[in-house]
């Protein structure tokens, strides 16, 4: 009985295969195009209805206040350093240090990010998780680089030469009226050419993004896997009032 069914299955399989094999289909013409998904297209009701509860939950969480900013924080309020740049670099320093200490027993010496990476200002008023998504839409993680000697000097030279207030923390830089480097210190100590410094930055910059090639001349790289945006959100949750200002970490002296 089972044998007969087996035979039958084999027979049907052969019939189906034979009928398929006879098809000598060849491509005669091909058309191809890109379809733009634009605002005049109708939307699927079932998909809309399915997404709705997810969207509402997400929005309620994203828009709930985590902290309060008494003044607008922006990257454009200072020439050599800005309130928002300082805030970002300080957040990276404060929020990442415990992770780095736990993993290496060492502290971060300084932080450097890129001015262009700050994508939005932080408006006066409630600060939410959405704020963090606006400021940092990229999926960048914080990495720690072991750098010494020439690489650190190149970093500072780049900062000075760029003319941009790239966010820094733990670094004190002085330039003259001629816009040439006068001095720089790390954590208030004079620069030591032979010391290995722990520098925190983003994975994007560590790969040489924004032409920060000095980051490629490093001795070690530790990827914390910690998203810059998550560091911001964690920081917002810890503080009631979000304050940031232009200060003297990078200034021009006479």
């Amino acid at each position, binding site marked *: 009985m089972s044998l*007969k*069914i087996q*035979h*039958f299955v084999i027979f*049907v399989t052969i*019939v*189906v295969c034979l*009928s*398929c*094999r*006879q*098809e*000598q*289909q*060849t*491509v*005669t*013409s*091909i*058309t*191809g*195009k*890109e*379809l*733009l*998904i*634009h*605002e005049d*297209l*109708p*939307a*699927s*009701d*079932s*998909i*809309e209805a*399915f*997404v709705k509860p*997810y*969207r509402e*939950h*997400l929005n309620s*969480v*994203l828009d709930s206040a985590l902290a309060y900013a008494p003044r607008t924080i922006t990257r454009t309020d200072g020439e050599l350093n800005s309130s928002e740049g300082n805030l970002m670099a300080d957040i990276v320093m404060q929020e990442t240090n415990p992770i780095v200490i736990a993993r290496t027993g060492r502290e971060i010496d300084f932080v450097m990010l890129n001015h262009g990476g700050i994508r939005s200002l932080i408006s006066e008023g409630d600060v939410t*998780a*959405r704020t963090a*998504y606006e400021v940092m839409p990229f*999926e960048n*993680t914080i990495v720690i680089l072991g750098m010494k000697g020439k690489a650190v000097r190149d970093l500072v030279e780049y900062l000075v030469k760029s003319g941009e207030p790239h966010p820094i923390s733990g670094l004190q830089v002085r330039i003259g009226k001629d816009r040439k480097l006068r001095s720089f210190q790390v954590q208030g100590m004079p620069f030591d050419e032979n010391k290995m410094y722990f520098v925190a930055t983003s994975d994007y910059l560590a790969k040489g993004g924004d032409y920060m090639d000095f980051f490629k001349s490093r001795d070690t790289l530790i*990827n914390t*896997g910690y998203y810059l945006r998550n560091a911001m959100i964690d920081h917002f949750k810890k503080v009631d009032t979000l304050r940031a200002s232009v200060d003297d970490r990078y200034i021009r002296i006479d």
Partner: protein
Amino acid sequence: MERRSFLKHTGATSAFIGLGGLGLSACSGSGPKHLTILHTNDVHSHIDPFPEDHSAFPRKGGIARRAALIEEIRRENPNTLLFDAGDIFQGTPYFNFYGGELEFKLMSMMRYDAATIGNHDFDNGLEGFLAQLPHAGFPFLSANYDFKDTILDGLVEPYKLFQLDGLKVGVFGLGIMLKGIVNDALYGETRYLGPIEMAQEMSDILKKEKQCHLVVCLSHLGYEYDRGELPSDLDLAAATRGIDLIIGGHTHTFLDRPVVRKNKDQQDVLVNQAGCYGVNMGRIDFYFDKTGIRADGATINI
């Protein structure tokens, strides 16, 4: 004698008729056949349309609109296949909140037929991907990620065969080198195999052994590279034989139309990529006939 008892078996008889019917409808369509392939890539968790004030894509995209358009195209031509070339995950809070669950569920509702794995699909690690797999009602295909020593062992196939209206379509997936762009811990013991070599192996299996009418590659290699340190889709097209269509991703390349390249045998290969974030969807239509015209004599209207 055997035949008589065979026919007496009513269950088997009805099965025979059923299968026979299937065989007929699957293989005997006499007129020219028409296959539509729709594809997305690098949607990156973009479910809602972009807002009015977005600098690059104001009011564009949106999964509900895409779903409606796909349904409309399917009504016109039921012989439609829908693919994604990777980086489904990461890019909006939907991913951070739900870990890709919503993306997979929506793609299943839209009846995606297959997808390949992009580098960002590893962003929550192999565990994060595995956790969402039950929500995906479509297979993930990769011929050059070897997951044998990982928790994804047996869950990702190199290729899949699709049979529509008597047409046999073979589809395989390719992924980019993970080292350097994905944190090592996230992809674990996943082994990266040479994409060009694996593509040729797949193409040979699908075209020669499986007798496919069409071979499609879902690639997350990237469209083109200046420095050429990694193989791109254009490199892949030129260095292989047997592939008809390369559906690309990774480089977020917006093309005005698909491009045509010559393969190793000087035959045409189509390469397409649909930008990113669900702003574009690619559409390729293949028309077949039994006239015996050689495949490379096809007219390509793009």
